[in-house]
């Protein structure tokens, strides 16, 4: 039995960092010091995470629970009726993997931010929020019960809001932040309802708990595949669609790109948006009992994957392409969860964290350089518009190489990390007992689109002739070391990160599968969730999906390098299609018409017709009455000692009289 009692240190360090920078950052002023504090805080968490990760690897016992004071039973948060909630943490292979990703990628992005945010007003504020985010995210993944997870869940939402709205003086940033917050609230509502329902339904069976291990151990008390389990899991899934930007609640994520680029990389690509996937993984025993919910998840995931990919085909803003790509890749993860490929989903979560963080940070490096050049030339062009780029591979060699590597990884070319995880998802969606060939078809087509739009991005940005304004084109520098080091590390991970999950059919040992077995194995066995099919089928499918990806890449090359005029001709030919895609299928407009405006109208009616005359009237009336009463009572306090004594006597006489007489 190993000792894991210092688990609380992992979220604790970033919390301290956040407090220090938040309270004293304005006084410190020194950017280097602020950045060091922030990075050191998350770095310390990374060190602790590594220690525990490797300890867990060598430990026969894989599931450990501790509380804030170490020993179980000593960190009671609240004790209500028969429900006891602890400040408890859970370390198992799943959370161990998550803390590695969060603290590892988090550390790199903190380091990157020192360079990227240099000279920004509110530098300290940025680092304070970023640390606070890491704290919340670590609470989310480490919580051993749903309440602690929910604190993290809300905390990351808050930090996301604060960081999207970091440039709050810009209206678009403020609006995007509000949108993210409101849309997430819809999802959070689902999460809470699901939690209450679960607590209630388990309570009916005599088990009052919200601890994950106990939920897993008692889930069998509920009816397998029954209505309750289906509704509970659907509610949780609604929560997941909000946080993880799935249909129908994905619309906030592309707008969230208003935040600084490191934020997009950390929160809106690598960590927070995967919280929904993690949550389903955490409660896999429950979800496995609801095949209907799983089917919904698989369909929503596949639909999101292809839908977002289609929008990504026609965007010109470098970060927006990546944003839709993120939504699409998250769709893959949900597809994996839906077909019961829990391990594959978490595997893809991890590889995606590497290559997508690298892509975002790379795009940040490009934007940084473009911004620098425009600033130098006193121009106000958009530094994020790919139509102003081109040929940057010579100006920014390190950014280019790491970006290219990550793009190859996301496109699913064999040998790179994305290939292994995506291929496993596709194989499961075809061969799983909960999958179907149509899911595979959708996934494979989306993979082709991914390859196309990602290489389109690479070709438009780094290849061809430079289309930047001539006054600025010679002033684009490669970024500094704090930016390029994280890029190189993440680029390397994007290549090799997949080798922990090489499937057996390619002669690999699939380490991640065995590592996560204690978390997912039981539910998969219990509900007979497995992928089966002949080796020939598996090879065949693998070949086809790689072929589709290659076609996508070739298409991008053909259209954007070989025949640069072709896209314009195509747009002219399919005007309506391009308009629809370019405008994101008008989903935002549809939501505005259906929900936003209707809600606003209802709000106006309640406000003018009910709130002002009736509620305010009552409230003001009561307030007025109390104040009047108060003024009158004040006169009893005359300051005269004999009247005080008299009041005491009268009081005592009344009391005694009331009882004795």
């Amino acid at each position, binding site marked *: 039995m190993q000792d894991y009692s210092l688990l609380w240190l992992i979220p604790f360090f970033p919390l301290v960092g956040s407090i220090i920078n938040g309270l004293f950052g304005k006084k410190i002023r020194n950017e280097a010091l602020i950045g060091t504090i922030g990075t050191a805080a998350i770095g310390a968490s990374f060190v602790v995470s590594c220690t525990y990760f490797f300890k867990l690897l060598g430990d026969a016992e894989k599931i450990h629970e501790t509380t804030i004071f170490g020993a179980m039973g000593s960190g009671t948060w609240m004790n209500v009726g028969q429900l006891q909630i602890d400040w408890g943490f859970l370390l198992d292979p799943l959370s161990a993997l998550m803390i590695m990703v969060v603290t590892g990628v988090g550390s790199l992005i903190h380091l990157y931010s020192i360079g990227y945010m240099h000279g920004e007003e509110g530098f300290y504020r940025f680092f304070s929020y970023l640390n606070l985010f890491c704290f919340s995210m670590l609470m989310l993944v480490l919580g051993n019960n749903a309440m602690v997870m929910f604190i993290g869940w809300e905390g990351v939402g808050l930090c996301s809001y604060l960081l999207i709205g970091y440039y709050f003086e810009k209206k678009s940033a403020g609006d995007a932040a509000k949108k993210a917050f409101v849309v997430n609230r819809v999802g959070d509502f689902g999460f809470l309802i699901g939690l209450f329902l679960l607590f209630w339904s388990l309570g009916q069976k005599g088990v009052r708990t919200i601890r994950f291990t106990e939920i897993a151990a008692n889930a069998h008390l509920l009816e397998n595949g029954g209505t309750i389990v289906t509704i509970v899991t659907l509610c949780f899934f609604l929560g997941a669609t909000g946080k993880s930007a799935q249909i129908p609640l994905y619309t906030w994520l592309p707008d969230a790109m208003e935040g600084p680029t490191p934020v997009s990389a950390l929160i809106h690509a690598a960590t927070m948006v995967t919280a929904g996937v993690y949550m389903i993984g955490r409660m896999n025993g429950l979800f496995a009992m609801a095949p209907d919910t799983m089917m919904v998840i698989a369909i929503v995931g596949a639909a999101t994957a292809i839908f977002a990919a289609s929008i990504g085909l026609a965007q010109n803003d470098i970060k927006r392409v990546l944003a839709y790509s993120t939504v699409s890749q998250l769709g893959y993860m949900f597809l994996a969860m839906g077909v019961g490929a829990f391990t594959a989903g978490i595997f893809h979560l991890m590889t995606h964290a590497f290559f997508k963080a690298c892509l975002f940070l790379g795009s940040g490096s490009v934007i940084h350089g473009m911004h620098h050049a425009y600033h130098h030339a006193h121009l106000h062009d958009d530094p994020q518009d790919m139509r102003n780029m081109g040929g940057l591979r010579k100006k920014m060699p390190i950014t280019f190489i790491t970006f290219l590597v990550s793009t190859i990884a996301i496109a699913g070319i064999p040998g790179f990390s994305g290939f292994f995880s995506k291929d496993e998802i596709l194989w499961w969606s075809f061969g799983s007992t909960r999958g179907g060939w149509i899911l595979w078809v959708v996934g494979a087509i989306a993979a082709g689109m991914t390859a196309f739009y990602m290489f389109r991005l690479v070709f438009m940005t780094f290849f061809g002739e430079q289309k930047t304004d001539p006054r600025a084109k010679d002033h684009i520098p490669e970024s500094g070391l704090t930016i390029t080091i994280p890029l190189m590390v993440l680029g390397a991970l994007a290549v090799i990160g997949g080798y922990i999950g090489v499937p057996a059919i390619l002669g690999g040992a699939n380490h991640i599968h065995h590592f996560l077995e204690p978390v997912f194995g039981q539910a998969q066995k219990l509900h007979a969730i497995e992928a089966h099919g002949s080796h020939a089928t598996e090879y065949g499918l693998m070949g086809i999906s790689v072929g589709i990806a290659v076609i996508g890449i070739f298409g991008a090359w053909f259209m954007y390098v070989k025949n640069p005029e072709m896209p314009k001709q195509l747009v002219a030919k399919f005007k309506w299609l391009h308009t629809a895609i370019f405008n994101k299928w008008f989903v935002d407009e549809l939501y505005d018409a259906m929900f936003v405006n209707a809600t606003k109208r209802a709000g106006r009616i309640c406000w003018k017709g009910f709130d002002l005359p009736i509620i305010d009237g009552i409230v003001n009336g009561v307030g007025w009455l109390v104040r009047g009463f108060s003024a009158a009572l004040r006169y009893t306090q005359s300051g005269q*000692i004999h009247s005080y004594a008299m*009041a*005491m006597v009268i009081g*005592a006489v009344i009391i005694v009289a009331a009882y004795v007489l």
Partner: protein
Amino acid sequence: MDNLMQIAMQNVNYGSIMPSLVLCIFGMALLLINVFLPRGKTTPASWIALIGLVVTAVFAARGWGDPQFGFAGHVALDKFASFSNIIFLFSAGLTILMSDEYLQREGYPIGEYYPLILFATAGAMWMASGTDMMTIFLGLEVLSISLYILAGMFRGQLRSNEAGLKYFLLGAFSTGFLVYGIALIYGVSGTTNVADIGMYLKSHPAMLGNPMTIAGMLLISVGFLFKIGAAPFHMWAPDVYQGAPTPITAFMSAGPKAAALVAFVRILILGLDGLQGDWTSLLWVLAVLTMTVGNIIAINQTNIKRMLAYSSISHAGYALVGLVAANQIGVSGILFYMLAYTFMNLGAFAVLVLAGKKGEENLTLEGFAGFGFKRPFLGVAMSIFLISLMGIPTTAGFAGKFYIFAGAIKAGYIWLAVLGVLNSAVSLYYYLRVMVYMYFKEPAEDYGWVTLHAGAVISIIISVVGVFYLGLIPGKVMEMARMALFF
């Protein structure tokens, strides 16, 4: 005669009064040391007093694992007393920390100040560990007399004189009720030992309906309710609280009030258990009255010290709710709440101590305009304490109110809990108003006179930590409060 001495000596057991004994020794030593300190230099005295409190805390904590009984059943240093002693020690310690610079500023660096606080604390400890009416009474008087002097300490200030004299006269008056009540109960049962009274009433149920018993219970209650500051015996409180030196006001609102409450709890639940139906109905009414009167008058106050005095009345009302419930969760809720209240109220007073000018004429709402931006640390700290006083989650005030109201609901007093929560809502108005002035009004001054003295800052930091510890992780302390119960 020899035999009698033998018996008496056997029963002495100094272990049972060790904490208060240590305090008294420190207090008396300090009185002597004061003679040798240069005039106007009180800082060393405050350090010695603090050391005394720490040493006492060690002895007080001993009672937790190893309960001590002594003096022929007059004194018990049980878990209940130990927990209460920790509350008194915190309130005395935080008071002493914030006092030194204050005394210098106001021009009354009087050496006797610190020994008197130690004696008052010792008196409070006798009340908490008293298992005999006479011990409790003795403690009450030691406590009260020290407080009378402390309240009137600033001889040259009219308001302070008034406070001391008023408190003394009305306090003496209320003591009359208390002693009369004790005498009546003694007349019924033939004993002043609390447990024996309980046994007697249990074995003679006929005496429960006797007017003498009921009148005795009621008069004892009046005496204690006066000390707690419950309506309609609260009228001294605002005048005394406003006039007394600010740290003493802070002290009075926490430690001594807690002492009266715990002694009251012991007498009612251990001794007068048989009359529970009577005293719960009385306290039900008075709890509601106390909460309401305190809150409603507080609304119209513009002086923050006086506003906190009224708020202190309403908090006594919340605590009484736990006594009405008279069950495990309610009564342990009282212990928890008094500890929580010690932190949040003393913290708020420590901010006032720092924010005041000589004479403290500026401690009004207007005087706090824009304070939060000019003095961010104090502003944030004050906001935290006010939020806790309101009873907003994540703070100690919420957890305390939660347990007390939960106790009331469990005991079936749903309406009482509802009225309590409504009262909390009323209190939002005047607490929030301070924050409104601190953050939403244009600063009238630059608050340049405010200096962050180490002692007061330390007491603020301790209070903030306490407020958040009890608010975020209340489970552990609540568990201890439950273990501390003697029933």
